[in-house]
């Protein structure tokens, strides 16, 4: 009897903590929004400040950034499927979808690194002009977020393998999926403001 009461107590506690951490993470995402907003503002101010150097129109390759966009959007979709699998209690499907999501994320980061290297090779480096400084910083910050998300997701896959779906791992998966969708939303703005407006 006493044990059952203690068990309930503990259960309440996990639920309470989940609601705290979810709210905390939403607020963290607000701060991240402001962070990206500031970088976007800087980029918009400086996008014409090319100092005689290359412009976005000359540098951006449509197939590359469209491919990046499709890959990232798909990974957001697969991370959603992962959460659906989790809600059904299917651990293997959950891990499978997370692995696919991570691989897509990796492909995205790979393309971006390749894009940056090509640009730098052609002389379009961060120190060439204010426009390029703003470009590399804004896009790079997003790429860094994706990379951190990948490390984080890998850690969570190991935790799922060890512990399965529990109250705590469930919360962690919910939070990283929130993070992943957020990065996707930021990318849509990057796609529009940096790349589309750049090549137009």
């Amino acid at each position, binding site marked *: 009897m006493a044990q059952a009461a203690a068990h309930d107590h503990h259960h309440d506690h996990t639920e309470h903590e989940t609601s705290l951490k979810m709210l*905390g993470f939403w607020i963290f995402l607000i701060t991240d929004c402001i962070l990206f907003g*500031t970088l976007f503002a800087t980029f918009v101010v400086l996008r014409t400040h090319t100092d005689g150097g290359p412009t976005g129109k000359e540098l951006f390759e449509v197939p590359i950034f469209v491919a990046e966009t499709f890959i990232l959007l798909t990974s957001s979709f697969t991370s959603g499927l992962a959460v659906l699998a989790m809600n059904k209690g299917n651990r293997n499907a959950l891990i499978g979808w997370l692995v696919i999501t991570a691989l897509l994320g990796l492909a995205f980061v790979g393309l971006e690194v390749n894009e940056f290297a090509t640009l730098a090779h052609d002389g379009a480096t961060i*120190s060439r002009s204010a426009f390029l*400084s703003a470009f590399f910083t804004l896009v790079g910050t997003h790429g860094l977020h994706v990379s951190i998300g990948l*490390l984080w997701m890998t*850690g969570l896959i190991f935790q799922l393998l060890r512990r399965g779906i529990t109250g*705590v791992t469930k919360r*962690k998966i919910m939070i990283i999926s929130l993070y992943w969708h957020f990065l996707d939303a930021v990318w849509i703005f990057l796609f529009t403001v940096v790349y589309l407006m750049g090549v137009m």
Partner: protein
Amino acid sequence: MLENIKTFASTFFVTGDPMIYGADVSIVLVSLAALFVLTYFKKWGYVWREWITTVDHKKIGTMYFTAALLMLFRGGVDALLMRVQLAAPDMKLLHSEHYNEIFTTHGTIMILFMAMPFMFALFNWVVPLQIGARDVAFPFLNSVSFWLFFFGAMLFNLSFVIGGSPDAGWLSYPPLSENAFSHGPGQNFYIWGVQISGIGSLATGINFLVTILKMRAPGMKLMKMPMFTWSVLAACIIIIFAFPVLTISLALLFMDRFFGAHFFTIDGGGNPMMYVNLIWMWGHPEVYIVVLPAFGILSEVVSTFSKKSIFGYKSMVFAMMVISVVSYFTWVHHFFTMGAGADVNTFFAISTMAIAIPTGVKVFNWLFTMFRGRIEVSQPMLWVMGFIPCFVVGGATGVMLAVAPADYQYHNSYFLVAHFHQTLIGGVVFPYLAGLYYWWPKIFGFKLNDRLGKWAFWLWNIGFYVCFMPQYALGFMGMTRRLYTYGWDMGWAPLNMVSTVGAFLMGVGFLFQGWQIIHGILYAERSNATDSWGTGRSLEWSIPSPPPVYNFAVVPQVKGFDDWYLTKEEMKKPGYKAEKPQLESIHMPKNSGIPFVMGACWFLAGFGLTMETAFSWMIVPGVIGLIGVGLCMFARSFSYDTDYYIPVDEVKRTEASLGRVV
């Protein structure tokens, strides 16, 4: 070989100034003394278990407070050095470069490493107690925040003896802060010290916002919250919206300095004024981040010692919320002379003046709370009464500065220096001190000596006016800020001398406060009485002083605003019978060493990347530090055994030892 070591040492350490050698010696001596004392009295385990790894918000508050006090000392010494240098014309105490370093570190330390931790100390000490919570929402993160602040501050202070201090002003405006004008590591110390502690502050903002929104005791609706908690809520909202902008401003400056980017350089298409806009988009709200909690403290103290409920509760809350929003639309008033044009300047002049309206509402509410109250002039109340005239004058000169055409005259003059010291000392330091005296008995179980406190109060107050009133006049006489010396022909000598005397009076006031604390620790009468002042009104006064680790043995059921006052009224009624509380085992977070290690890793990372400009191999410790930060996060993510339960018996025993029957 020897030659190599010599060149290394002369670049690595700051040399050539007796004051810095003195600092070297005192740093080494104090560190050795600390190591010796801890080893001799076998206190290493105690310090590790009870302090370094603690997640108890009250202890974290105490550590914040200790750090703030030390930083107040360092920032104060900087201030006195400047005042001595300016006391008479053609003074030779400091040379120009050294003077630049000192005004830079004075400003940075006083705002970011003194006012902020002092404020966080009060957040940590008071908010969970006022809302009837056993801890903050994220105790582990709270400890991380503290250690990030601590190591950020240490990194910043280290620049004094290693690498050289930053010298581009407290906000590091480019192009002064760019490589072309500040090549040494000093500016990097600024970037990393402020960045690391800024991340900690952001986390604190999130933590306390969630704490206040989610952890209030049952029955405490938002509009039943104590005023201080309201002010913390408002400040946290501003932190959440302002601090990411600081993070980005510093990151962009870092990109310019390390990777040769062109955000703020004149060449390459960058624009220095963009940095100034960005940093003030954080910097102006920052002013309200530190001042709103001060308003909260004033409300608590005024109502406690006038023995009345706060006058106009709703208007107080409304005023704070208005301030937190409007504070975002005023940043351009810091550079009306930028050349933005009349329309832009008009908008920001009007929005700046508009802030005076809600602030005025608050001042009138405090006055009306005192009106017909039975005022008790205790130490906290004394500081409130010192605050009101000081802040009113500071506010009035602020409105003078907000008049854009007039600002072309006052801009960067001593008038401005006098104004912001008046609002920051009168409006922030005085109320924080009031809060310190007010909640001290709650946290430590004893009151600070009254006589010493009165000496401190009068020295601070008289010293303040003697120091800063002449500076308004000096501003009108044409003296500019950041000026390291001047000639006899300017006619500024007498007023400067008076101002310096005032600064020293404040310094003596501070010494009295240090004495007061030591005196209290040694001699003050201990009492674990719940309601230390006898007239407390909010929940923190319903539990023993100092509170046990779990704060509330039973989570209170809140009936209304000023809940403890209502309970006391209830108790006075004939036939009052206390309900027998139902004790349960209490869920608590476990201590953790990870936050400390993570802070140390950040320190290593920051130090490596800072010194990298002087020695390229320093990138190695920098990268190791960053990897360490990542590993700490992994270690935390993989640890599941993070909490424990305090059994009912132990709660009973603890409560009994505090003289309470449960």
